[in-house]
C-alpha cells in the first residue's frame, strides 16, 4: 500500500509537493530536487504541464521510486486516447506506480506545440471510471485483464471556481466515479476553502489544499490575470507589495494557508517552484 493511501486512511495530515520532468533526458536536477522533498508523503510528477513537451512522467515517476521517493503520477487526457491511457496505466502499475492524479489537461493551445491536435477522447471523469474498471480486472471494452492493477487514484478540484454549484457538480461526479482523494488548485481565500470543505466533507474524500508560494506582488497579479481558477485576494497582493522582502512575506502567507488547511483539510499540496528549501518554514508554524 502506498504511503499516501496509508497515511490518508490513518487520518494523518499528508504533505505532497510536485516536480516537473525535464525537457530532455537528463534527470539529475529533478532527482536532486526530489531528494530535498524526501520528507513529503509523496511527490506529484506532472504530465506535459501547461502543454509543454517534457519527458514522460511515467519514466520520472519510476526513477523517483528507485531513489526511494514515492511518486503521484499525473496523467492527462490531452495527449492520449483511451487505448494509450489504459496501456500506459497498466505499464505504470507493472513498474510499481500506485498513486495517480487524473486530469483533463491544459489545452495544447497554451503550450510549446500549439499546432498539436489535442486528444480528449476521455474526460477526467471518464478516465477515473476507466481506472476503476482496470482495478476491477477489465478494460473499457469489458475484456478481462491478466493481472489487475492496484491504484490509488485522485483527481483535481478548483474550490474557488464560480459558480460554486457547477464546480461542485463536477466534484460529485468525480467522487461517484471513484476518486479516492483530491488535490486542489492553489487556494488563497480561507473562507472559500472552508466553505468548500463544509460541502465536500459529507462525500468523505480526503482533500489536499493546494498551497502556492508567492514570490512577489507581480507574480500574484500575473496569476490573477493568466491562470484560470487562481484568485489571489487584493489584501495579499498589498501585503506582498508593502513587504521589504516579498519572498519572506510569501512564505508567511503560505504558512497561514497551511494552518487553515490543518484545520479543515486532510493535507496540503505544496507548489514552491524552485524554493523547495523553504518548505520546512512553510510547514513550521
Amino acid at each position: 500500500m502506498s504511503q499516501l493511501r496509508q497515511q490518508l486512511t490513518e487520518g494523518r495530515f499528508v504533505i505532497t509537493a510536485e516536480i516537473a520532468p525535464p525537457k530532455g533526458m537528463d534527470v539529475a536536477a529533478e532527482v536532486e530536487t526530489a531528494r530535498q522533498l524526501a520528507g513529503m508523503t509523496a511527490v506529484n510528477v506532472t504530465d506535459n504541464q501547461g502543454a509543454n513537451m517534457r519527458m514522460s512522467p511515467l519514466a520520472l515517476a519510476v526513477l523517483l521510486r528507485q531513489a526511494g521517493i514515492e511518486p503521484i503520477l499525473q496523467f492527462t487526457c490531452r495527449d492520449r486516447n483511451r487505448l494509450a491511457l489504459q496501456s500506459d496505466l497498466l505499464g505504470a502499475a507493472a513498474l510499481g506506480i500506485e498513486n495517480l492524479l487524473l486530469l483533463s489537461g491544459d489545452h495544447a493551445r497554451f503550450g510549446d506545440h500549439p499546432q498539436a491536435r489535442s486528444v480528449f477522447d476521455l474526460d477526467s471523469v471518464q478516465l477515473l471510471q476507466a481506472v476503476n474498471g482496470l482495478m476491477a480486472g477489465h478494460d473499457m471494452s469489458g475484456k478481462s485483464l491478466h493481472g489487475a492493477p492496484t491504484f490509488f487514484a485522485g483527481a483535481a478540484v478548483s474550490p474557488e471556481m464560480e459558480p460554486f454549484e457547477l464546480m461542485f457538480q463536477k466534484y460529485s461526479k468525480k467522487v461517484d466515479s471513484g476518486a479516492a482523494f483530491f488535490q486542489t488548485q492553489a487556494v488563497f481565500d480561507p473562507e472559500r476553502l472552508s466553505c468548500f470543505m463544509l460541502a465536500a466533507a459529507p462525500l468523505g474524500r480526503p482533500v489536499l489544499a493546494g498551497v502556492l508560494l508567492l514570490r512577489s506582488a507581480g507574480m500574484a497579479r500575473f496569476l490573477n490575470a493568466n491562470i484560470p481558477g487562481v484568485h489571489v485576494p487584493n489584501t495579499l497582493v498589498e501585503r506582498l507589495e508593502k513587504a521589504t522582502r516579498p519572498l519572506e512575506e510569501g512564505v508567511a502567507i503560505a504558512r497561514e494557508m497551511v494552518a487553515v488547511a490543518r484545520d479543515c483539510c486532510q493535507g496540503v499540496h505544496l507548489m514552491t517552484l524552485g524554493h523547495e528549501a523553504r518548505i520546512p518554514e512553510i510547514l513550521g508554524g
Partner: protein
Amino acid sequence: MIISRQKPREELLQALAGLHRVFIVGCGACATACKVFGEDEVFRLQESLAKDGIDTTGSVVIDEACHIMRAGRDLRHHHQAVGEADAVLVLACGSGIQSISDNTEKRVVGGLDSLFLGNVRRFGQYEEKCSLCGECILNETAGICPVTTCAKGLLNGPCGGMEKGCCETDPDVACAWHLIYERLKRQGRPGVFGRTVAPKNWGKRQRPGRYNVER
C-alpha cells in the same frame, strides 16, 4: 453551411505554377452564400489571374458542387473549355473539389480552405456549433453542444480552466458548460447533470462517412 476561406494569393499561385490555362468552377451553394465564391468572385478571380499570365478557358457556377452527378453533368456541358485547360480551378469546399476530381482526369486545383460547418450570426460572421459527431447529446444539454463548443469537448462538466463563465483558451468565448448550466437552471431541469456521461462512441463517426437511406 460549409464555411470556407480563400487560400492566400501566394499559395494559390504556387499551386497554379507552370499552368497557363484554367477552367474555373464555382459553387452556388455555401461558397456563394458566405460570399467566398459565387459568380462575382469567379469573375474577379478571372481578371486577377489574367494579370499573372493565367488565362481562363471558361467557367461555370454549379448549383451545388457537392452533388457528384450534377457536377459531372455541368462539366460535360463545358467539355470543350475544360479540355482546353491545363487544370480545373475549383472554388468550393473540399467536398465540392472532390465532386470535380471524381468527374475529370484533369488536374484539379482547390482555391479555398474549408473551415467548418457553420451557423451564420450575421453577414460575414460564422460560428461552429456542430461537429457532425454522429451521437447527438443536445437533448440533454439544453441545445448547446459541448462536443463542439467546449474547446476540449468535455462531456461531464467544465474543466478547471473556466473563469467568470469564459473558456480558458479564449476569454472572449463563453464556457459551453457554463452556458449549459445556466440554461438548464432556467428551465428547471437537471438535464445532462443528472448522470455521468459515458465515453463517446467515436465509432459512430467512422471516416470516411457513408450513409445510404433505405427506401
